[in-house]
């Protein structure tokens, strides 16, 4: 019997958190059949690619669906009066 997809996803999530190249804690990882989905926000395009690379190393053989988005730091606007 193959490894349950939940364990594969957990291993990838742990790799993304602990690998010195990524140290990303907030990435959602889901495995569906032969596909591995990555979702969440990252700060730049380089990190988006790097996270997919680390995920692929942790779960070889799965097709990586990189759905991470690059968050744009916007200019501050307005203020809240307390």
């Amino acid at each position, binding site marked *: 019997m193959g490894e349950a997809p939940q364990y594969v996803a957990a291993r990838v999530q742990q790799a993304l958190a602990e690998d010195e190249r990524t140290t990303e804690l907030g990435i959602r990882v889901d495995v569906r059949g032969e596909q591995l989905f990555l979702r969440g926000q990252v*700060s730049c395009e*380089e990190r988006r690619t790097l996270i997919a690379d680390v995920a692929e190393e942790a779960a070889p053989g799965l097709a990586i669906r990189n759905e991470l988005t690059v968050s744009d*730091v916007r200019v*501050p606007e307005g*203020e*809240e009066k307390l």
Partner: protein
Amino acid sequence: MTGLRVAAVGDVHLGEDMRGRYREHLAGIEERADVLLLAGDLTRHGTLEEGRVVADEFRDLPIPVVAVLGNHDYHSDKPAEIAALLRDAGIMVLHDDSVVLDIDGVRLGVVGGKGFGGGFAGKCASEFGEPEIKAFVNHTKRIADRWRRALKELDVDRRIVLSHYSPVNDTLEGEPLEIYPFLGSYLLAEAVDAEGADLIIHGHAHKGTEKGMTSGGIRVRNVALPVLNRAYAVYCRDGDGESC
């Protein structure tokens, strides 16, 4: 007393690949705010190289900058060295203590530090059982005690608490419930409610919500960059009879 404008952001997670990119958003900050608070997780994994990027991004700003470190800034076991790099760049770094700033005659006291986890009232860990669990909870208790003492000793016009971990669960809404105990502790809010403050700023919860409050009615703001989705938030506290 005049109004006070507080800019705040956390979880900027800067690394070499972000050098210079954050700084460009800080231009003109003195037009919008009187002080900038950084709510921890300034680096990705707490290396000195990343610490230098943070120091360079926030050095020599025209307004005072006060920071606390976050769990990521501890990852390489060099928090003291990172704090020293930031201090060398003119950034004040709190470690469960306080700083008093004079802002156009308003004495602003900022108390804080990293904070820690444990969970929220009724759904939290306690100092019971294995030494590892006791140490975890005791770490938060000691921090809360130090904040309480620091607040008690402050003789200022305005008091702000700056933390990385959250003191309330309001601002965690959006995060999975299962990880709440790793995102903050009510012990932090309890300490602040006991002594009073005008505002609590924290980060850490990237998927959380910006606005919340303590049981005592103190406003809490989660300024994690992914929550704000802008370079920093500005909170304005009216002076007596004067709007800001």
